[in-house]
């Protein structure tokens, strides 16, 4: 195998591969990227056995072939090469090594046989559809902060993507929760997604997927089965196992009868929460919201460290209410709002609170209050 590529293109492909390989793995081949050169393309394949990413890039192929080499080392080398350099990779079958040449730099790296590289079993996808990168980006960006890290509830360690009845008919919906807050984001259902089974996309996959979604108008081909999901651009194919578990019935968690409505400028609100939370103790970070006629008083009282209070003008006309929240959760939720005012719907100080952007119900957030 021998081929040459421009350094920038190579770096992009190798970067994606090295972020997929598991840093601390016990199976040596899993640290490697499988490089295959044929026709006028070179492809780079990496896997951690749960996720597989294949990045294809055009290359000047002199001799077709395939081998595997450490993804991290190759990435480090390419990263340090000068911009615009032409990089040549040559497999030396005699020595079992691969050489990386660029200008006057020359590297020789150990390889492992391509036959040992695990290839993810192909799957029959029951639904195939196409979605705009920006639609998927919104679905995952606005929900991923709520993904749980609790290993005992592994079925919450991802984003639940499924078909649901939204306000304006069928929707492609992403839900994530860690039991303290919940995000539910809807997008119009793309054609072909109607029969998609609901799947839990693992946290790491969400992170890798994000790299495919930078370009607003890029069309992403999505394929879904009960056990796998695939996202593909013309160059990159990301295949991932989905979390084998049942996502809890989140609909009963979303409050329907919350009538006490507060409208506030989301940015002002977030800044105020951040300021008063400065004095709260590291562990609880509880912020108290005291609501009265068009007035919100945010306060923190931490006996060990101090107290803080800040008043904000809000739209509120219901009866007095005092309710406490974890400051971090409030901040994260408030920072999801980017267009309009944040609308909070409260019930009592012990019931879940709902937050959305203006009257837009395509993105709703639920947060559990805490005793203060």
């Amino acid at each position: 195998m021998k081929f040459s590529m421009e350094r920038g293109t190579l770096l992009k492909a190798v970067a994606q591969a090295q972020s997929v390989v598991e840093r601390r793995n016990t199976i040596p081949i899993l640290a490697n990227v499988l490089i295959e050169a044929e026709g006028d393309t070179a492809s780079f394949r990496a896997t951690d056995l749960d996720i597989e990413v294949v990045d294809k890039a055009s290359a000047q192929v002199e001799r077709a072939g395939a081998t595997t080499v450490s993804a991290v080392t190759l990435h480090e080398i390419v990263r340090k090469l000068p911009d615009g350099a032409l990089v040549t990779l040559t497999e030396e079958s005699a020595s079992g090594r691969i050489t990386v040449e660029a200008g006057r730099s020359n590297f020789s790296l150990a390889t492992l046989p391509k036959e040992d590289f695990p290839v993810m079993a192909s799957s029959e996808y029951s639904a195939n559809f196409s979605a705009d990168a920006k639609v998927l980006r919104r679905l995952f960006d606005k929900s991923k902060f709520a993904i749980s890290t609790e290993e005992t509830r592994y079925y919450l360690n991802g984003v639940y993507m499924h078909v649901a009845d939204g306000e304006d008919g069928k929707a492609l919906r992403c839900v994530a929760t860690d039991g303290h807050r919940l995000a539910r984001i809807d997008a119009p259902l793309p054609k072909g997604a109607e029969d998609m089974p609901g799947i839990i996309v693992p946290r790491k996959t969400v992170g890798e997927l994000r790299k495919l979604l930078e370009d607003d108008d890029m069309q992403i081909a999505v394929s879904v089965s009960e056990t796998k999901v695939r996202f593909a651009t013309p160059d990159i194919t990301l295949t991932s196992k989905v979390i084998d578990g049942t996502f809890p019935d989140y609909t009963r968690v979303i409050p329907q009868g919350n009538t006490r409505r507060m409208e506030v400028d989301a940015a002002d609100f977030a800044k105020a929460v951040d300021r008063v939370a400065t004095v709260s103790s590291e562990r609880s970070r509880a912020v108290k919201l005291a609501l009265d006629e068009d007035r919100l008083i945010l306060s923190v009282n931490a006996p060990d460290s101090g107290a803080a209070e800040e008043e904000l003008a809000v739209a509120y006309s219901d009866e007095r209410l005092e309710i406490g929240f974890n400051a971090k959760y409030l901040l994260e939720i408030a920072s999801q709002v980017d267009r309009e005012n944040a609308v909070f719907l409260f019930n009592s100080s012990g019931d879940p609170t709902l937050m959305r952007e203006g009257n837009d119900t395509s993105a709703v957030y639920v947060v559990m209050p805490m005793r203060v």
Partner: protein
Amino acid sequence: MPALCRDCLTRFDAGKRCPACHSRRVVQNDELFDLSIAHMDCDAFYASVEKRDNPELEGKPVIIGGGRRGVVSTACYIARIKGVRSAMPMFQALKLCPEAIVVKPRMSAYVEASRAIRAMMDELTPSIEPLSLDEAFLDLTGTERLHGAPPAVMLARLVRRMRNELGLTGSIGLSHNKFLAKVASDLDKPHGFSVIDKAGTEAFLRPRSVRMIWGVGQAAQGALEKAGIRTFDDLLRWERRDLQARFGSMGDRLWHLARGEDRRRVSAHTPMKSISNETTFHEDTSDPDILDGHLWRMSQKVADRAKAKELAGRTVTLKLKRADFSLISRRTTLRDATQMADSIYRSARGLFDQVGSVGPYRLIGTGISDLVPEIDADRAPDLLDTGAAKRGQAERATDKIRARFGPDAIVKGRSLR
């Protein structure tokens, strides 16, 4: 040399017998009436309580411990003559002393006896640091004017009262710091009174093994031996810097202890670090229902203790011991600290379900750590667990019933498995 009769509390000038009552139970030391840090350790506490409460046990070897598979928690002095020791597996203890009478622990009786002793100690000083039910450090510094007698006299009076009023004996170690007081109380057991004075500290320590140091277990001992340190004499040859470099913070402590220095104060409020409970089964089991029942009971015991101490934990641990004695331990950190049996059980159960091996197991245990005051606990209910609030109320109500009618007044069905 100042001397004290431990029977009639007469103070006199040196001699083997008390001039007043002719007792031989005399303690004498140049610094006897100047030292004020003490360690009181009850003699074979659980066994002594049992013997006191059941005259039929008098003169017989008694072992306190749970079941055939458990370990010895206390052995009376008669059983100790045969070689029975605390923490020894029960089968081994019974091999050494087959005639021993094995008594199941009655914690409530021991707690009661411990409280009575504590009340007597409270009369001596507010500076008491209990280490367990049957031992405590006491700092009597500055109490001589108050009591009209030096600490040594008050301590001798304490153990005399314990014997007369409670029928329990204890041993006193008196010295100038905690480390030496604890060492001293062990020198003359049972019913002893030993003194390690300042002048004699170095000579006393020199030939002794560093194993004596509280907190030096097998691992630390191994590390010390690798460095050629077996006795305090060996330790004294080390430069402070070298000890620090080799053993980190322990090195510094060792350097001080080698010189008989220990600046730790007797503190009534040593923060608790964790609360845990475990049980060894009569027979190894892999029956998930039985294990589940035990797990619930352990969780409830942990919760009971946490509630009594007004504490809650942010980390829940699960401990399993396989039939081959290999240990499995798992932990999970909660978003919201808890003291509720229900939450501890659910977290531990989640960990158990993830273990992946099927057993059989010989032991199961659970615990909480990363403790916080209860006011900071159970503040944010779980959004997804809509039944949690109800179960929480049920647990609080159950607690009230159990507080009034005893711990078994109301139990969950799963604890009966």
